[in-house]
């Protein structure tokens, strides 16, 4: 076998390895989703979405869990998006490239990999105890916002970095100030990437259980939260609670709640794709 033949073999070999890897993930996901659907789909009805938690599996619902998740999601977005995007803009467009900037950059990248329970402990001390938010939605949202801030900052910076420099130079050449350049040219051009980062970060926040249990999110909450200071429960905690119960009927409830959580994240990702395409189309260089 000469060199050329061997290279061709490696070439086509890699193709099949690639195909296998792609389908491995997809098949696993399909098996998982199929399994969950088979277990839980029949349990989902209007009552399941509107009932309060109950000791009787057949009567138990997720009203307070999904409303809690919606509150947490909204508050976390409101807190983390402005902070994260602004920090990203500063670091990428204004910040000087010195030692301090390097250290900050390194730390942000590291923070993105810190286990979520650590953020829970931080949130418990700062938001629950020092700031006296208690085990409230606000404390939970601030904790999760901290958790996803590094992801948003990194995504924002990457998106800004991808905007060609010629755009900035052209804008300066027309006499625009730095802020005008960022606001009118660079941000719209980078919006698709930033948005994708934000949605991915929020999707992670939606699935978190550990930090919320640490700050005092509850399992049995018989009322829908009406202010950010109310106590709350979220879908992942309800799922966690149900799948660890001995009765098989509760496991079915858990599967049904997983389906709802999956639908929620699919909708979020769908919205992200839609918005990204919409904004991307308007930009033509």
């Amino acid at each position, binding site marked *: 076998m000469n060199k050329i033949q061997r290279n061709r073999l490696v070439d086509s070999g890699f193709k099949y390895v690639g195909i296998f890897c792609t389908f491995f993930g997809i098949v696993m996901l399909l098996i998982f989703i199929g399994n969950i659907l088979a277990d839980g789909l029949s349990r989902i009805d209007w009552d399941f979405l509107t009932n*309060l*938690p*109950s*000791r009787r599996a057949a009567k138990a619902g997720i009203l307070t869990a999904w409303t809690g998740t919606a509150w947490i999601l909204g*508050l976390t*977005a*409101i*807190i983390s*998006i*402005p*902070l994260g*995007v602004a920090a990203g803009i500063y670091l990428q467009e204004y910040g000087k490239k010195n030692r301090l900037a390097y250290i900050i950059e390194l730390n942000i990248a590291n923070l993105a990999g810190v286990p979520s329970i650590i953020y829970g402990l931080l949130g418990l001390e700062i938001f629950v105890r020092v700031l*006296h*938010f*208690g*085990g409230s939605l*606000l404390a939970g949202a601030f904790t999760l916002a901290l958790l996803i801030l590094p992801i948003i900052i990194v995504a924002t910076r990457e998106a800004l970095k991808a905007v060609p420099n010629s755009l900035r130079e052209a804008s300066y050449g027309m006499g625009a100030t730095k802020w005008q350049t960022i*606001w009118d040219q660079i*941000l*719209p051009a980078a*919006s698709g990437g*930033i*948005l994708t980062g934000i949605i991915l970060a929020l999707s992670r926040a939606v699935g978190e259980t550990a930090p919320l*249990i640490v700050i*005092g*999110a*509850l*399992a*049995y*909450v*018989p*009322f829908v939260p009406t*202010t*950010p*200071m*109310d*106590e709350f429960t979220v879908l992942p*905690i309800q799922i966690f*609670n149900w*799948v*660890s*119960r*001995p*009765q*098989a009927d509760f*496991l079915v409830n858990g599967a049904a709640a997983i389906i709802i959580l999956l639908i929620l994240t699919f909708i979020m990702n769908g919205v992200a794709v839609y918005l990204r395409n919409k*904004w991307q189309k308007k930009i033509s260089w």
Partner: protein
Amino acid sequence: MKLHFRSYLLIAFTLFLLNSCGSKQASEQTATSAIAGEIKIDGSSTVYPITEAVAEEFRTEQPNVKVTVGISGTGGGFKKFGRGEIDINDASRPIKEKEDSVCAANNIKHIQLKVAFDGLVVVVNKENSFIDHFTVEELKKIWEPGAQGKITKWNQIRSSWPNEEFHLYGPGTASGTYDYFTEAIVGKSGSSRSDYTASEDDNVLVQGITGDKNGIGFFGLAYYEENKDKLKLVGVDNGKGSVMPSIETVKNGTYAPLARPVFIYVSDAAVKKSGVSEFIAFYLNNATTLVPEVGYIPLNNEEYQNELAKFKSFTTPQ
């Protein structure tokens, strides 16, 4: 109208500012609305189903008292209890000295109320044909810290058993169930070998032992009751002959030492809040019917009345 990404950012930022202003007012409101009736409960996930059942029924009687229940674990709950952050702690073991001294330091007096029994079962794989009971000494020999890496085969436990390796399954070290088992069997709470498959989720243990011919494990009675067809129950001999765990043997105390009472702890500050005394009375008066419904073993009626009398003398100042 074109909603630009930038306008969206502006809206988000405005909301952020509004939100940070609004939160202060909201926190003042909740501080004053405590009179309307709010009971904060946290603690053991073992006791959770009982308290959840009581809270659910209590709602039909007192719809304006907001009862919430968390699952931070017995230890996590006592930490909050000692800081006065919660009114009632669900506990699957009595309060530890250290936790008690924290309460004392923060001037929190409390009362322990027994609410039910939980039996711990020792189970093996369905196909295991040679075993019908363990003695307490044998269990100790299997689980004590010194057994790690040394006691690994059935015939090391009892010489008539096969020369095959066994595999251990048990709750994780954070659970009250683990604390209780090690205390009752090894003699010291929290002390055991660590080379076993641990899970905080007892359903995982059930699955593990179901699929492992040489599995041995322990967990709460309710999990066995739901999986009777998949597991083999093993009797425990504490010197007076082998006893199988059942509602009867747990209640009358013959299934020892693996039957344990579970508790709720109420603080003196909590009983001054409206609704708490009513809730506790409701708890103890309805436990007889609600406790078995969620898979636990109730006390006798007189015992519940005794607990209630204890609670009443705790609430009336001397």
